[in-house]
C-alpha cells in the first residue's frame, strides 16, 4: 500500500471546523491538571457560541485526531504555545505524534500533507534544548522539509515526526506563525 493511501485514510481533521466544540473543550479541561488555566477558560468561552460550525462538519468525512485519551496514571504531558501566546497543556499517550495531538485538540496546525513529511506546515519549536536533545535526531527527509520551514530555529522539528515518549513528558513546544516562506522554496 502506498504512503498516499495510508495517509488518505488518516485524514487529519480540519482543526478549525470542530465537530463538537463543546465536548472538545470539556475534554481539554478534563485532561488538564488541577484548575484550568486562564487561557483555557478564555478559549472555552471564545469557542462555544458558534453553532454554525456544527452544521459544517457534520458532513466532513472523518473527525479529527486519531489519538485516544490516555489511561489514568499513564498520561504524559505536552504543552503547546499557540501564536497568540496561549498555553494548552495536553495529556497524551506515549507514541502519539504532535500533529495528531494538536489536531485532536483544535490547535492551529495545518498538516497539509497529512503527516507524511512532505510539507513543513506542522513545524514546531521546542522551547527547551533539554527536551530537543532527548529526541531521536531528525532524519534526512525531515531535515529536507525543515530547510523549507519559515522561521527555522536550532530546535525546530516537524510535529508529525515527533512521537511522545516518557523522556519528553512535560515538554513545551511553540507553534510558529505560518507566514510566507521567503527562503529556499523557489518552485520555478
Amino acid at each position, binding site marked *: 500500500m*502506498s*504512503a*498516499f*493511501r495510508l*495517509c*488518505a485514510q488518516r*485524514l*487529519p*481533521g*480540519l482543526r*478549525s*471546523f470542530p465537530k463538537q466544540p463543546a465536548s472538545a473543550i470539556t475534554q481539554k479541561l478534563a485532561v488538564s491538571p488541577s484548575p484550568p488555566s486562564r487561557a483555557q477558560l478564555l478559549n472555552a468561552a*471564545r469557542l462555544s*457560541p*458558534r453553532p*454554525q*460550525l456544527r*452544521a*459544517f*462538519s457534520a*458532513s*466532513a*468525512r472523518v473527525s479529527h485526531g486519531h489519538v485516544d485519551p490516555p489511561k489514568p496514571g499513564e498520561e504524559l504531558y505536552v504543552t503547546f504555545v499557540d501564536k497568540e501566546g496561549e498555553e494548552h497543556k495536553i495529556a497524551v499517550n506515549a507514541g502519539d505524534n504532535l500533529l495528531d495531538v494538536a489536531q485532536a485538540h483544535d490547535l492551529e496546525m*495545518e498538516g*497539509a*500533507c*497529512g503527516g*507524511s*513529511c*512532505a*510539507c*513543513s*506546515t506542522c513545524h514546531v519549536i521546542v522551547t527547551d534544548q533539554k527536551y530537543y536533545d532527548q529526541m531521536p535526531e531528525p532524519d*534526512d*527527509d525531515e*531535515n*529536507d*522539509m525543515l*530547510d*523549507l*520551514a*519559515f522561521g*527555522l530555529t536550532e530546535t525546530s522539528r516537524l510535529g508529525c515526526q515527533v512521537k511522545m515518549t516518557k523522556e519528553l513528558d512535560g515538554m513545551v513546544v511553540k507553534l510558529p*506563525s*505560518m*507566514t*510566507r*516562506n521567503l*527562503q*529556499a*522554496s*523557489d*518552485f*520555478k
Partner: protein
Amino acid sequence: MLALAWQRTNNTPPRIAIIGSGPAGFYTAHRTLTRLPTSHIDMYEALPVPFGLVRFGVAPDHPEVKNCQDTFTKVASHPNFTFLGNVSVGNPSDHDHGVGVSLGSVMRNYHAVVFAYGASRDRKLGVRGEGLKGVYSAREFVGWYNGLPACAGLEPELGRGEEAVVVGQGNVALDVARILLSDVDVLAKLDVPEHALARLAESKVRRVHVVGRRGPLQAAFSTKEARELMRLEGLAFHPLDKGLFPEDLKTLPRASRRLSEILLKGSPTPVSTTPGGKSWSLDFLLSPSAFLSSPDSPDHLSSTTFTRNTLTSPFSPTSSVEPLNPPETITIPSSIAFRSIGYKAAPLQDFQTVGIPFDEGRGVVKHDPAGRVQHTPQDGGKVFQGLYCTGWVKTGPTGVIASTMGDAFATGDAIVEDAERLSNEGRIKGGWEGVLAEENVARERVVSWEDWNRIDGAEKERGRELGKEREKMVQTEEMLEVLR
C-alpha cells in the same frame, strides 16, 4: 471576535467570489470560513475539475504532497461553499462546452472578489531556434504527463535520441528530469495517464543535462528534489567539480550546506560506460544561446549551444553572472530540450475593461502586503474596495504549497478584517444567481462539487481496472460526458 461583532450589526452575509480552485483559492476559503463562518463563498474554476497545480503540476510521484486535497474537500463540504466548475471568469473559456462570465458581472454581484487564478503561462528564453520541433516548455510537458487537457496532445518527441537538455535549475526542472529518467513500471502505478505512459515507455532518453546560468549555491531547487534524484535506482549522477563549492562547507547557511553535501556525495550508482545506463548532470554557469537543427532534419532540434559564464561572487546566493571574457561556447547534443525558466501569470482579459492594473514585469496583480488589490503608485496606490489576490498571481510563480498556504491565510485575514465594512455598505449582493441573471450562461454545463465527485469516482474506477490510483480524464468533453 470581529465575526461576532459583525453578526450583531448586520444581517447580510458577505458574499465572496474566489476565482481559481488551486491551493491559494482553497486555503483562502478555508481561512475565511473558519474566521467568518457566516460568509458565503462561490469558487469559480475554469476547468471542470478542481485543485489547480496540485492536480496538474505536482509530480505524480509526489502523492503525499497532494494530501492537501483532503483539506480542500472538507472546505468544499461547508454549507456556505459552492463550487462552480467549468466557469472561466474574465477570460473566454479555453475549451468547447466551457462557460465564460465577465469579471464586471462577478464584481457587481459580490462584496469581495479574490483573484486566485495562478500562473498559467511560461517565460520564453528568446534565443534562436526556440520554435524547433523538440523544444518544449516544461510547463507543457508537466501538463502533459499530469493530464492537463490543454496539453494532452503534446506528443513530446522522446524517441529521437538519448540526450535531453533541461534549461533552468528549479524544482520543476528536476521534476522533468526525474520523470524522464524514472522507471516506467514505477510511474505506471501512479496517476500518469495512459497516453503519457505509452510514450514514456518508448522514450530513448538516457542522459539528461539540467543546465543553469549560475552555480550550485545560486540554484533554486531544494534539497528534497536533489535527494530524490540521487536515490533513483540505477540512475548515475555525473560528479561535480569541487571548485564550485567553498572548501569549508560549514561556512554556508544550513540549507545551502545540506544541499552542497548531497551534490558532492552524488549517487550510489557510478556513471557506467555500458550502453543503456541512465545518468543526469547539473551543468552550471551556462546560458543558452541557440537551439540548432542538423542539415538532414532542419525542423528538428539536434543540439543546444551555450555560452559560459563566470560568477561575480561565487559563494554568495545572490551572485550575478557575466559571460567569460574572451567568450567560450559549448554545444550539447540534444534531441529534445525543455525550457524551465518559470511560470508566468497574465492579466485577465477583463482587467482592462474594469481598470485593474497588472504588473507585467513581475507577473502579479498589484497588491498591498496583505493581498488587497491596489492602484498603481501613479494612480495614488489606493486599494480597491473588495478586491483581493492570493497565491501565485499575488506572489509570482514561486513557492511550495506551504508558502502558498501562509500567503492565502494572510489574504483570508484581510477579507475577514474588511468584511464588516464591505457588507455594511448595506447592499445585498446576488452572488451566482445575480451573475446568472446578467450573463448568458448555459447552466447545465456548470460543474458542481457533487458533479466533481462523480468525475473523481469515475477516474478512480478506471484506475482500479488498470491497477493504479486513478486514470485521469484528459479531455474536458470526457469529464462532462460522465455527467450526462
